[in-house]
């Protein structure tokens, strides 16, 4: 997979292999919080902490902020799904066009997927482990089979995210 920045501000994912396309196609399902209240809570966290985290304040936040966040995040996934469906295939490679308007939506969708997978599958926390512990944990996860596909997807998503931050996101 080779991301290419376009003059208009969007980007094109060129030379996307079938396995990479398959992984990207799982972004919406990877971001699905169904069956995981913890993952949903990570995407829709409370707005207040400490003594100000009263039931009234928390209820207001859930009523007025969470629906807005949910709409935003669902919209991101829908746009990503549309871009994936519109991908062109030539021989064994796919090309995916992402407009400048959708570049940040792609970033958030990839982030959603990583946040949900990390929460659902309890991936190792890079910050809390030493390098050796981290590698041992990653190796164990990859060998376990069950979570290996998620871990590989998460790494692929993170690489693409880094590229989007460096090339597309404006402050």
């Amino acid at each position: 997979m080779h991301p290419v920045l376009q003059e208009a501000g969007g980007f094109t994912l060129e030379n996307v292999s079938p396995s990479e396309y398959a992984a990207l196609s799982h972004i919406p399902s990877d971001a699905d919080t169904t069956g995981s209240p913890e993952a949903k809570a990570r995407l829709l966290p409370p707005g207040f902490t400490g003594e100000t985290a009263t039931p009234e304040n928390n209820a207001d936040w859930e009523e007025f902020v969470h629906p807005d966040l949910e709409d935003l995040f669902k919209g991101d996934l829908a746009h990503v799904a549309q871009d994936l469906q519109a991908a062109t295939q030539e021989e064994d490679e796919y090309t995916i066009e992402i407009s400048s308007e959708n570049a940040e939506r792609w970033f958030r969708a990839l982030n959603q997927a990583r946040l949900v997978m990390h929460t659902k599958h309890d991936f190792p926390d890079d910050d809390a482990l030493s390098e050796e512990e981290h590698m041992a944990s990653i190796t164990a996860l990859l060998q376990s089979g069950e979570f290996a596909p998620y871990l590989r997807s998460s790494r692929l998503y993170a690489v693409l995210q880094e590229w989007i931050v460096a090339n597309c996101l404006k402050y």
Partner: protein
Amino acid sequence: MSSVPEPWRDRLRPAQQPGTTGSAPKNHPEEPEPWESPDTGTTTLLNESEDLDQPWQVLIFNDPVNLMSYVTVVIRRIFGYSETKARKHMMQIHREGKTIAWTGGRERAEAYVHQLQSHQLLASLHKASE
């Protein structure tokens, strides 16, 4: 672009709608404390002046997923901080688990937390005295 629920939109300054991505409010670091900001709307200024005795803090917490480069971009975008100041906050989050990104009136603090959560950062507000 996301929309802001009506009850919240009424409480925000026009250029400060959470969830926007391209025209985020700029609370430049060189400005005086937020409640003294000269570009604050009249209504908001009056409301925020009621909070002067008890300023609120916007906290951003560490999480193992959000990229450091992204956290820096988001802090710059939302608060209008310089690259250096944004990176300082990001590193404090990374090393100490959290940072106080902003202190001021409740309404703007709520708007900032809303924006930060729209960018999928772990953020919340609380009273500065806590």
